[in-house]
């Protein structure tokens, strides 16, 4: 069963972040440049929030403005769900589904070691599905190789 550590091994441990004072314009530019859907908000190295495309779309709708000069701290989500490298992919799926979120920072103790997305999860499952079912089916038909 795949764990978060496996996902990070595949995608890397790079974390992009902004501060609460960073204007939305810069925040969105970073997200576009790195092709990501959410960015962590750090204040003196501590996670104080997360900001996603969804947060932006919802706030822009309610404020009827693009809000580009406003600081991201005004729009970030402050309750940040996270996982550890030992959590299973299924636990991530359950958390994402229950909380209706698409990104999970990964913390090892106090240390931020990566971010996983719903896209990373689906990509992993796509690969896993083929391998697991194929290997079980090979076994049923007696095609397993002995070492």
């Amino acid at each position, binding site marked *: 069963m795949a764990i978060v550590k496996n996902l990070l091994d595949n995608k890397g441990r790079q974390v992009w972040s902004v501060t609460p004072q960073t204007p939305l*314009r810069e925040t*969105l*530019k970073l*997200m*576009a440049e790195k*092709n990501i*859907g959410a960015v962590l908000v750090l204040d003196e190295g501590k996670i104080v929030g997360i900001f996603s*495309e*969804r947060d*932006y*779309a*919802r706030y*822009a*709708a*309610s404020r*009827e*403005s*693009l809000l*580009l000069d406003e600081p991201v701290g005004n729009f970030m989500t402050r309750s940040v769900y996270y996982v550890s490298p030992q959590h299973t992919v*299924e636990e991530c*799926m*359950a958390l*994402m*589904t229950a909380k*209706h979120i*698409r990104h999970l920072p990964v913390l090892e103790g106090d240390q931020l070691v990566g971010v996983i997305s*719903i*896209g990373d*999860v*689906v*990509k992993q*499952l*796509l690969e896993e*599905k083929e391998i*697991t*079912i194929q290997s*079980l*089916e090979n*076994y*049923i038909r007696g095609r397993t190789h002995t070492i």
Partner: protein
Amino acid sequence: MTSVRQLLEGKACQVWYVTPSSSVQEALKLMAEKRIGAVVVVEGGKIVGIFSERDFARQAISGRITMHTPVREIMVSPVYYVTPDQTVEDCMALMTQHRFRHLPVLEGEQLIGIISIGDVVKRLLVEKDAEIKSLEDYIWVNMI
């Protein structure tokens, strides 16, 4: 193997849409109200594009749009879609390959629903356990 049709069964039938002349603001308000991440753009009964949270976030910094810009200038087309007989795996592959999170479902010419990456994951939570368990039952029976 779960079909797209089965995936749709768990959802409400209503497909929300806007027209090409709807404003960005109107589209975003509809998406907020209905708690969705993308909306199809329909003209003369046909899908002419799709508009998502990501498209908005990416275009907002281009300097070329305002909240009053018509959706036709910001929507994405052509629109990838799936049919009811395709599988959840087909959806996963399309979404991963093209990096999108929504797929309209067309039955012939008729738009019968939209599948999101969230719908896929929700379904897989259930399916994953069931499939591996049933194959293992089969092996166990054979070994006896």
